[in-house]
């Protein structure tokens, strides 16, 4: 089997010699490699990065902070990672339930990971930077309401709506966005939030037909709920499928389907309540 002249330390060395070694890290440094790279990965997964990006960024951060290698398992709402440094290794689980989409987080963590790779920032700097990213600026609540209302109204024009349906869609979607933010702030379940928000959008958009504002009133109904379409889970899910992350792709796609179902239920309820002809 193995050479009897080898002592125990050498056997471990043989087992770990399939990868190159970096300088040995002390306990605290190794702990920080794990903690910081998983923290960054957790934020990426929570705020809408696809699986490949989460894996690659954690790997880049971990090896940049001094680990020889990292093994990373990304599941739909948790990350498991192992850092390896010479003869030491650590494994940690980190939960990362979805928190919506935030591109500022993704941009800043990505930039940070390249700085770490180039050796421009140490583990203390990374900790401070991640804390700052956690408290990043957001667009003002009312800016979001107006921007989303305008976006859905623009969709109405793309569907061939006229000026009346444009205005109705704007008010329906802005109102719905306001409702969605409020329901989110009172911690309501996301699926129920989607049903209620779609209902609100549908009720307001029905006014286009009830008040005979336009012959194209159904375009207002169709466009007013688009703020709820789970575009990011659906696109990321398909990207994960293409990259071979089948389980994560499935989870994201099913989540997208559930939210689409919630929209359909809320909208049907509004159409029945208001007695309009629907899509």
């Amino acid at each position, binding site marked *: 089997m193995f050479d009897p002249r080898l002592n125990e330390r050498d056997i471990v060395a043989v087992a770990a010699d399939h990868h190159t070694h970096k300088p040995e890290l002390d306990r605290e440094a190794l702990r920080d490699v794990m903690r910081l790279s998983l923290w960054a990965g957790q934020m990426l997964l929570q705020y*809408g*990065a*696809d699986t490949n*990006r989460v*894996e*690659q960024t954690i*790997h*880049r951060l971990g090896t940049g902070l001094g680990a020889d290698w*990292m093994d*990373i398992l990304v599941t739909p709402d948790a990350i498991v990672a192992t850092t390896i440094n010479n003869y030491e290794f650590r494994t940690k689980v980190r939960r990362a339930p979805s928190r919506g*989409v*935030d*591109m*500022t*987080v*993704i*941009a800043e963590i*990505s*930039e940070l990971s390249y700085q770490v790779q180039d050796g421009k920032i140490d583990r203390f700097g990374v900790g401070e930077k991640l804390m700052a990213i956690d408290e*990043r600026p*957001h667009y003002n609540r009312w*800016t*979001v309401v107006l*921007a*989303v*209302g*305008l*976006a*859905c109204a*623009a*969709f109405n*024009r*793309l*569907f061939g709506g006229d000026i009346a349906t444009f205005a109705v869609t704007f008010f329906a979607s802005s109102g719905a966005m306001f409702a969605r933010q409020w329901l989110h702030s009172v911690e309501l379940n996301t699926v129920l939030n989607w049903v209620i928000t779609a209902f609100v959008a549908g009720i307001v958009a029905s006014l286009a037909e009830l008040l005979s504002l336009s012959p194209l009133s159904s375009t207002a109904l*169709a466009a007013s*709920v*688009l*703020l709820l*379409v789970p*575009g*990011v889970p*659906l*696109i*990321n*899910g*398909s*990207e994960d*499928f*293409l*990259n071979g992350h089948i389980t994560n792709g499935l989870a994201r796609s099913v989540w*997208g*389907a559930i939210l*689409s*179902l919630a*929209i*359909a*239920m809320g*909208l*049907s309820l509004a159409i029945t309540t208001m007695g309009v002809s629907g*899509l």
Partner: protein
Amino acid sequence: MTILLAVLEDALWSGVAAVGFGVLFNVPRRALAYCALVGACGHAVRTLMMDQFGMGITTATLLGALIVGFMSKFIARKLKMPSMIFGITGAIPMVPGVFAYQTMIGLVDLIHQEPGQIQATLAEAAVNGVQTVALLGCLALGITAPTFLLEREHPVV
């Protein structure tokens, strides 16, 4: 001339839609204008292909998504930002939202349907469902194809 105007109008509204969703996704301010540009070009190309060249919506979406994908890579290198910011936000105007919830409305309708109507409703829901999946697949392929083509590296993870 009317064609050009129609395409420009399409580009304008798609750009507005992309920026609106960019604000919702908390896209950094300096990237918002580029999101509008990418979203406008992608959707305008799709509309042009469908209206003027008689292309089907699926092929046209693939073409539009490829434009979004390559433009995102180019802008991402220029601004030193991840390309997914421009890719996802730029693809939003082409996401088959209406198909997705029409599929679901069709399935919900099956619950209280007259026996003679069931086949028609089911067939319609199935067609909408396949359409949704096909369009999403085209979008994802179009956005990721530049990565597959330009950055072929042995995976590090």
